[in-house]
């Protein structure tokens, strides 16, 4: 091989054979490295595309299987029907009871988690000394890391019996208990995202307010919270989306009776709990009964997707740049 092909002029007579050979080998090696670099670049790209494939896979598999369902039941009937009874006759495929059950749980969870999560975030960001924060933050992380079956167990065996003392006619499976525990579950999510937003509010804004004679509370509520509002709102939306998609907790504690009600003392069924119920059952794959879960999952996917997109959009759109 002529080394001039690498664009190297050989130095007249001064190079021994070994020198040339060495140089040749080195360039071959760099050639190999270039190939390797190009190769790994493609491997990395493909790995990054796996995430795109996942999304495409979710959308396609849900749509294809749900199509088998919407072939028989019209989308209109599915979205507006008031009774959900795909397994028992007379069959009826109105998804609204599942949606209302899901929303009921989420609303109860929101009533618990929004004030408490925000209060926690304000305390951590504005009041807590560093030492306290360093203890409380990991504790909240543990709370966030506990599996949802465990929360379900807690709701069923502890919260429900306690609530039954207050409401003696409450059923064993009920929306209230599941919703309350769901609220506790999403507190860490709201507090950590909100706290991040509040911590990034510049100190000068606080100092300005203090200089005008504001109390700590006034600084927190009238300066810091409004400045961090986009982050806080996004935290709320993302946490609610999490609550809508949560599965095991509601399957265990909220019951399996699809019911169009806003009475939290009754048992309901959420969209996710229905999917689990049918997955556990013996409905044959490909049957209309079985395809209902894909229709419900598609609706669930669309709902959570909209909320997530909204949440991320709120952050980008209204972020205060300091």
């Amino acid at each position, binding site marked *: 091989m002529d080394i001039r092909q690498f664009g190297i002029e050989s130095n007249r007579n001064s190079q021994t054979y070994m020198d040339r050979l060495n140089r040749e080998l080195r360039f071959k090696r760099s050639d190999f*490295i270039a190939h390797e*670099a190009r190769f790994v670049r493609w*491997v*990395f790209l493909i*790995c*990054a595309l*796996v*995430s*795109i494939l*996942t999304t495409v*896979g*979710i959308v396609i598999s849900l749509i294809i299987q749900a199509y088998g369902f919407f072939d028989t039941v019209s989308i209109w009937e599915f979205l507006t029907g008031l009774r959900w009874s795909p397994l028992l006759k007379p069959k009826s495929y109105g998804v609204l009871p599942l949606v209302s059950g899901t929303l009921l749980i989420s609303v109860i969870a929101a009533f618990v988690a929004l004030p*408490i999560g925000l209060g*926690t975030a*304000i*305390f951590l960001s504005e*009041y807590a000394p560093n030492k306290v924060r360093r203890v*409380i933050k*990991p504790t*909240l*992380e*543990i709370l966030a*890391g*506990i*599996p*949802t*079956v*465990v*929360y379900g*167990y*807690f709701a*069923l*065996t*502890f919260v429900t019996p306690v609530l039954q003392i207050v409401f003696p006619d409450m059923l064993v499976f009920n929306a209230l208990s599941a919703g309350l525990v769901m609220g*506790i579950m999403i507190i860490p999510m709201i507090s950590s995202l909100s706290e991040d937003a509040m911590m990034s509010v510049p100190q000068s804004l606080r100092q300005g307010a203090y200089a005008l004679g504001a*109390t*700590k*509370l*006034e600084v927190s*509520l009238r300066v810091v919270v409004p400045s961090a509002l986009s982050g806080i709102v996004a935290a709320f939306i993302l946490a609610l989306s999490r609550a809508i*998609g949560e*599965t*095991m907790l509601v399957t*265990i504690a909220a019951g399996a009776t699809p019911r169009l009600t806003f009475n939290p003392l009754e048992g309901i069924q959420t969209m*996710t709990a229905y*999917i*689990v119920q049918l*997955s*556990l059952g013996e409905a044959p*794959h490909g049957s209309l009964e079985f395809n209902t*879960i*894909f229709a419900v*999952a598609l609706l669930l*996917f669309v709902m*959570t*997707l909209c*909320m*997530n997109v909204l*949440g*991320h959009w709120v952050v980008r759109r209204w972020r205060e740049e300091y």
Partner: protein
Amino acid sequence: MTNNRKDQFNQKLRLRKGIAKAFYFIFLLSILIGIGGLLLLLIQVLIEGLPWLSLHFLTDYPSRHPEQAGLKSALMGTIWIMTLTGLFTVPIGVSAAIYLEEYAPKNWSTQILEINLSNLAGVPSIVYGLLGLAVFVQLMSLGRTVLAGSLTLSLLVLPIVILASRESIRAVPSYYKEAAFALGADKWQVIKGVVLPVAFPGILTGTILAMSRAIGEAAPVIAISALVYLTFVPSSPLDRFTVLPIQIFNWVSRPQEDFQGLAAAGIIVLLTILLSMNAIAIYLRDKYQGKSAE
């Protein structure tokens, strides 16, 4: 006149300070509710579960008789699933993170990748279960096996691993890389020789946390495995399986008091695994924190 206004001001100031004080306790209370909830949960689980915890609980199969029941099949299933999920997720997740941090051009296609990732992280886990059911179980006809389950969970935790890996890759100081470039290394050599070793502890921590998320997931696995009563341990990736959260769910959903106790004992085992993984992750994070910034 001025005195009167001063009085008014002072009165109002006292009120404002009083309210501020009251709210301090409200904020404190809200933290205590969160942490109190956690404590109540742990106490309840310990009280109910400890009497059921014994060695045979770990080495016996599930049974109709509560006093003989154990969670061997679920424990082994969880170990199988974790191992495979880790094997699938880590290489793909880290590679994707390297691409996004080091190679990806700043244009619309990269932005789509980013948006897609943040949305994937918000997809309910049960939806992943149905994806796995449709693609791995049915389309690729893997059946309700360990392999299908771990592939599904890999997709579920992939966004978490990518996110964590990206953060630790981004935290590698740029002068490390510049020094390597100055020595004539090309991009891939810099990544291989500098970026990955420095980012490794962070990647490891993120991976452990992602795995602990996967261990606790029941919903997607139920969609894949369905069966909740198994009296054998999977011996290959193509065997059927069950995992700890499903076994716990199975026990919780039985009306008898004894099974609730078993569920609590199962939860103790599950939480022990989870908390020790978290502890390892936190230990690693603290050990290596700031090292890359030196």
